[in-house]
């Protein structure tokens, strides 16, 4: 019976994790850049939701939109102004650049918001549902549903809009896309903005469910890594599958190894994956 509780927990976590990872995966796949800022983007999205609620009474789900817009704008500017200069350079250079930016952003948030953990305490929570012996927090469940909708939205954008198709084209073959007349630089910026927007949205989504501090940034980043590799880098459906898988892994892993080892377990899985099946569960074709 308790198995179903862990299953439910894992699935609900999975949706949020998918949202956390989707933007990161897209940027990695299209720009070939591992964006170390991603974790802090999520944290900023959280703070936007937190302060919107505590100061203005705006529900986190509404903040999802504001966060997406704010983070999207930040992402666009950061990419076009800074990251674009090193997009073609080596792994070393790009990783260190985003590392430096992450140090700056993390420090700024630490100074602005202080280091303690915060969480949104909803005045009117949706409550807890009972499905047999399984307890489900409806707020969390709602977050997960929205998370999946966002991923679906992203996927539709990539499939159906011309901007989205430009992104896919650049992902598969940058030079061919260039020859087709696609403005690769602008596409990069848009992709990065989308990634940041999703990160912000994810941060707002989890504001009512989990306590967050500036320190949480690297944690989210690490999880996003593993999920990406699990699901296949650059693949949005992959992020969804990877997120679910990771949510389940964490839920059941916490039982077996203790929750303090959740991250270690994730990392071990990551290394095994890198060695054995680097394309992830869905592979390169998952787009």
């Amino acid at each position: 019976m308790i198995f179903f509780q862990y299953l439910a927990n894992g699935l609900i976590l999975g949706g949020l994790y998918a949202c956390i990872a989707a933007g990161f995966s897209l940027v990695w796949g299209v720009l070939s850049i591992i964006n170390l800022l991603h974790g802090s983007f999520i944290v900023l999205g959280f703070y936007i939701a937190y302060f919107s609620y505590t100061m203005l009474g705006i529900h986190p789900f509404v903040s999802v939109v504001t966060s997406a817009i704010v983070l999207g704008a930040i992402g666009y500017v950061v990419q076009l102004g800074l990251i674009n200069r090193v997009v073609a350079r080596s792994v070393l250079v790009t990783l260190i650049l985003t590392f430096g930016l992450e140090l700056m952003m993390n420090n700024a948030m630490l100074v602005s918001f202080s280091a303690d953990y915060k969480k949104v305490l909803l005045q009117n929570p949706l409550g807890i549902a009972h499905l047999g012996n399984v307890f489900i927090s409806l707020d969390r469940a709602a977050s997960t549903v929205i998370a999946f909708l966002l991923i679906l939205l992203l996927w539709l954008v990539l499939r159906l809009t011309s901007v989205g198709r430009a992104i896919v084209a650049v992902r598969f073959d940058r030079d061919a896309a260039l020859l087709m007349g696609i403005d690769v630089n602008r596409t990069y910026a848009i992709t990065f903005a989308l990634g940041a927007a999703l990160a912000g949205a994810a941060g707002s989504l989890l504001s009512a469910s989990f306590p967050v501090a500036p320190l949480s940034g690297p944690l989210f980043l690490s999880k996003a890594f593993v999920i990406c590799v699990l699901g296949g880098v650059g693949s949005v459906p992959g992020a969804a599958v990877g997120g679910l898988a990771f949510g389940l892994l964490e839920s059941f892993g916490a039982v077996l190894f203790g929750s303090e080892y959740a991250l270690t377990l994730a990392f071990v899985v990551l290394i095994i994956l890198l060695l054995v099946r680097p394309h992830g569960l869905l592979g390169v074709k998952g787009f």
Partner: protein
Amino acid sequence: MTRTQLFIFVAIVALLLAMPLVGNNYVLRLATTALMYAVLTMAWNVVGGFAGYPLFGIAAFFGLGAYSGAVVQSSGYPVALAWIVAVIIGTVFAIVLGFILLRLRGHAFAIATLVIAEVLRELTNGWTSVTGGGMGLNLPFFGWSPTALAMFFFYMMLGLATVAFVTTWIVAHNRLGFALNCIRQNEDAANIVGIDTTRYKIIAFTIAGAFAAAAGAIYASWTGYIEPSDVYDVLFSIKPIIMALIGGMGTVIGPVIGAVAFLVLDEVVWRNFLQLHTGVLGFLIVVLILFLPSGLSSIGLTRLWRKAASA
């Protein structure tokens, strides 16, 4: 290497050797730290600069060496033994890890090495019975005066740095270095030309791991107290890369120059921006990266072969 680089290097060495005469403990501490980073950067350079494998986890070896040495020392054994054990453990770990990870390239290798350091940190945190876990580990030391201690560790780091330098120089000028150079430029062609790439990569990785572990062991004894989040700090992995980048990845003296230069910058920032320290550091990093010359590859290194072959 250019005349300017050589000049700067000689100046640095002279300055370092003059340190004990200054006698000021603060300056000695700074110099010892600079030497430690020089060791880490030289170690990193063998894998990242010569072989071209983006190693993002040298902190794993640093921390492993620190804890190995610390555990042995706090069990009552002499310091020398502690350091030797640390190097041995670091070496063995590097060989095993090398076998597993060196089949990865590019991003995958970078991430995997980064993650290893994190895993080690978590495991060290959890193994409270041996390592003291999150509460850290205290090391006993002989009741020397602060000045004597400062001098002692300065000379120890200087010794290690010298050994590291000589090792790097030898590697750069013989077949191993040539092979690593080939691997960096075209690993498939290197295989075809008869280079046992796996073997040479593992040797490079082991050299890096051994020296990083040694530095960690000395660091642990020097500071007298370590904890996982300290010695496995990702900054110990990142700073050597930046130092190598600014000093020149392709040369033997580049890492030393880069280490000293960056450390001075870092110290200035530390002293002046306490709360914003990491932020300003990040800013520095961003500026450095954006304005680094783009042809930062093997030009310096290849000149060494020419000299060696026509000697």
